């Protein structure tokens, strides 16, 4: 009887710290696992790539829309937007043709409004900072007499990342039947 009590007494003292230690170790194991899981999630290369893809696409869609939107009453603002949406060769083309274009649009008195129907990235080189996008566009042109006409455009754009921002470096329409329509 006495013996049993003593054993119990001795047994009670030992398992408690042991249990606590086991629990701590288990918690430590979980913490280590969760920690490295979190680290991996935060430094996932695929996620980084996906983020670049989405950044390129949204910048591309916006730039394509910008370049197909122009109001003859707000030419300066519109054309400034064109230039800020582009880079490289396309940017130079737009800048050099600006005066001529301004005169044309002022004469035609048109208002073009573009809406992106859909867009997707076809290629993405996130190291080189280059991407290719398809943007399905619907452009509504309002002529001087108020007549409106819709036209769908199958745009192909090339984007270049400059200073961390994606900008259009080339833009054209997908050729039809092997010949380009513009």
């Amino acid at each position, binding site marked *: 009887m006495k013996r049993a009590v*003593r054993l119990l007494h001795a047994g009670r003292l030992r398992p408690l*710290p042991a249990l606590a230690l086991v*629990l701590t170790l288990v918690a430590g194991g979980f913490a280590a696992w969760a920690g490295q*899981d979190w680290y991996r999630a935060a430094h996932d290369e695929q996620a980084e*790539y996906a983020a670049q893809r989405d950044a390129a696409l949204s910048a591309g869609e916006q730039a394509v829309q910008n370049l197909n939107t122009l109001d003859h009453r707000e030419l300066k603002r519109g054309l400034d937007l064109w230039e800020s949406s582009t880079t490289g060769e396309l940017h130079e083309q737009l800048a050099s043709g600006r005066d001529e274009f301004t005169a044309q649009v002022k004469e035609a008195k048109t208002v073009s409004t573009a809406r992106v129907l859909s867009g997707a990235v076809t290629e993405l080189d996130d190291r080189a900072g280059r991407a290719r996008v398809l943007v*399905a566009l619907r452009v509504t042109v309002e002529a001087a007499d108020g007549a409106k006409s819709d036209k769908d455009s199958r745009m*192909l754009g090339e984007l270049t990342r400059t200073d961390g921002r994606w900008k259009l470096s080339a833009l054209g329409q997908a050729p039809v039947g092997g010949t380009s*329509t513009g």
Partner: protein
Amino acid sequence: MSTTRHHINRQRRRQARETRPAAPAGHPERTPVRTAGRGTTAVLSPGDTVTADPPAAEEEKPTPSRSRRPPVLLLLCALTVLLGGFAGWAHAEAEGLRSEPERSNTALTDLARTSEIKGQVAKAVDRLFSYDHADPGALDEAAKDLLTGKAVDQHHDLLADVRARADEQKAVITTTVTESAVERIDGDRARVLVYADQSSVATGGKKSKEGEEAAQDEGVYAAAMLAVDVVHRDGRWLVSALDTFGR
């Protein structure tokens, strides 16, 4: 006198024996000494110190450890809570990062799947939008083969006019996908943007229907763009919806 002494000795011996089983756990090095001292009565007198010791030690031991053990226990508990808390928090962070919409979209990040989808969609669109008046069954077969859900009706509506006109003109309509890009892949669902050229060659019948003046022997090309929703089923990608952007 001798009885009392004998009784005391017996009691002491019993006490010594009783403390033994508990001893190994705490002080294993002491046990062999005591075992050696057993049997010989002469050792009983030095054994006195041993037998007298345990109760003293029992009382002595907890005193320093009682002041030491709770902090250790407390420390372990605190550490457990801290580590457990961190584990939970880090797990939540990781899950939060993973559930970001850009990550669930594996277009381009999963290159193999992306090109598989592009390839199958291009083939499907080629078949679904091509029509030969001489072989009308091919289109029905393609529809049965490649379409699912509401795409069945959408395709039927889209092609009804084309079909009727092609039959009338004895035309062959050929659709070729020129560009395509995967917008989104979310598990077994995906959406693809497709640019296609549609050529129609009339081989006879009434010519010069609206917009097809040139469709005599030369093919006329029409530019088409559409978004195609696909679902993965039985190892294949089936078209589940067609979006021609309201055209």
